[in-house]
């Protein structure tokens, strides 16, 4: 179960990375198309990739502790108070994100039912890119609920365990280490 979930978040992160590359590739397509004289409109494909990257990245980014929060007051808390505050914050997000997920699926369903089509040259049915929003939110919701129960059981929150301090990200270059 644990490994299954971790894989889910990791794969979701990779999907996000794939869509980030896709933004670049559609732009490359547009630039090349301009030289050859073919009109390739990347506004929609790049935009849809952008949305997909954001939503599929949510859970991964959360687990890595990259989403921003104000930790000014949390730093003074410890022990049981710290645990309660963490449960409150994560629990609150579970509620908000389940609401968002529900309405995101509703949104997908109605754009499918009414056959909404994007206005660009490609005329993509809108439910396809919007599905990325719904699925990404759902994976984020799973990650949040997972977090809630693991904190409840006394675990260290993943967003603290995995987070790297800013200066820790910088690897010391080899050639000066000896000095």
């Amino acid at each position, binding site marked *: 179960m644990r490994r299954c979930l971790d894989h889910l978040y990791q794969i979701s992160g990779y999907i996000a990375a794939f869509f980030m590359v896709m933004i670049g590739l559609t732009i490359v397509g547009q630039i090349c198309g301009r030289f050859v004289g073919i009109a390739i409109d990347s506004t929609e494909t790049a*935009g849809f990739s952008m949305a997909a990257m954001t939503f599929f990245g949510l859970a991964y980014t959360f687990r890595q502790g990259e989403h921003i929060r104000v930790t000014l007051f949390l730093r003074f808390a410890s022990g049981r108070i710290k645990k309660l505050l963490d449960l*409150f914050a994560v629990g609150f997000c579970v509620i908000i994100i389940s609401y968002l997920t529900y309405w995101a699926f509703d949104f997908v369903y109605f754009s499918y039912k009414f056959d909404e089509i994007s206005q660009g040259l490609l005329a993509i049915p809108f439910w396809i890119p919007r599905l990325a929003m719904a699925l990404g939110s759902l994976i984020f919701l799973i990650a949040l609920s997972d977090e809630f129960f693991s904190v409840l059981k006394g675990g260290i929150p993943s967003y603290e365990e995995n987070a790297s301090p800013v200066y820790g*990200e910088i690897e010391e270059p080899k050639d000066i280490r000896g000095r």
Partner: protein
Amino acid sequence: MEAGTLSILLFLTLLGLLASGIWVAPALLAVGFIGIDFFTDAPVGSLLASTVWDASWNWALTALPLFVWMGEILFRTRLSSDMFNGLAPWLVRLPGGLLHVNIIGCGVMAAVAGSSAVTCATVGRMSIPELRKRGYDEMLSIGTLAGSGTLGLLIPPSIMLIVYGVLAQQSISRLFIAGVFPGILIIGIFMSYVAIRALLDPKLAPVEESSSNFLEKLKASRHLIPVVGLIFSVIGSIYGGYATPTEAATVGVIGALILAWLSKSLSWKSFLESLMGGVKTSCMITFILVGAAFLSTAMGFTGAPKILAGYVDELNLTPSMLIVILTILYIFLGCFLDGVSMMVLTAAVVLPMVENAGINLLWFGVFTVIVVEMAQITPPVGFNLFVLQSMTGRDIMSVTRASMPFFFLMLLGILIITLVPEIVLWPVEIMINRN
């Protein structure tokens, strides 16, 4: 309910949620929900889904992940290790000597990394031990790092300016060009300050002998020049109207990959790290922007921002008075919040006010970013201060004291661009007339 009371209520709720440690983006969504569901008859659920969707596939935003990724790639090349040795021979003869390496080094690193804490840490890691060994004044060395580290927010390609552009619906190309000269201005102010201090008190910086000739200097900075060239061509293509910011960013990513490959620092591992690093940062920022879009829609439904802007109108504030008040407000908020959140939280209310007062929104973008920069070196939440504290082993008080002059120098920068707004707007006008 009366608009003023309502906005204060919503604002206090938001502060409460944020203070309790709830992540910024969900907190924004929650307050937007309260604003719509409790105070209007609009269908909140479907509004939430459609606003969040519309905000997330914004074309202007697509430049953001690409610029972040470009920075992540360049950051993993030899750039950071070569920064000190590459710049030192050029700057050593100036009064204040190698302290200028901190300032220029941060300026270059800033254009690449886009995060001020990372800029500060990368440059500082090389220069702090070196400067200490050569007997430079440590307070001045810490101060220059803290101050110049924040330049990353302003010097294009600036992530902060993209965020502002999306919030204020301003052209990102124009914002980038508007940010160039104020960035150079602030570097100039910092360098003059260091030079004057060093001339007044020679104990602060030893006089260095420079023995290298021009070719040797070039050789020392051979890894630095291509990166600077890449940044110039990215900005230049935007300025010349040859490319949109997103296209320029794509070219930047490709250029960065080629540079990394040529300097033999591109491996599958570093590629994947840069990719995932880019995803994390962009996802975090976009999620906050999406939350902010919903909150601002909610505020629009309640009609509060217009009414608040009306109040400010009635006060008959001159634009300069408004700027003074907003500067104080941002510096205060900066004591608790990070830059993106600060911008996002205030946008819905402040931007209509500013527009009403007849202040140019491009100019205001540059102003906001400089104030956010100042917030990075104000305690208790000054990210650069934390970084420098852990790198030098000094306590937070002395780090803060070392940084304070630079806080006021940035304030001086704001004063100058307020008195001479042409520094910001003139290059943009030339660009518009050209294209």
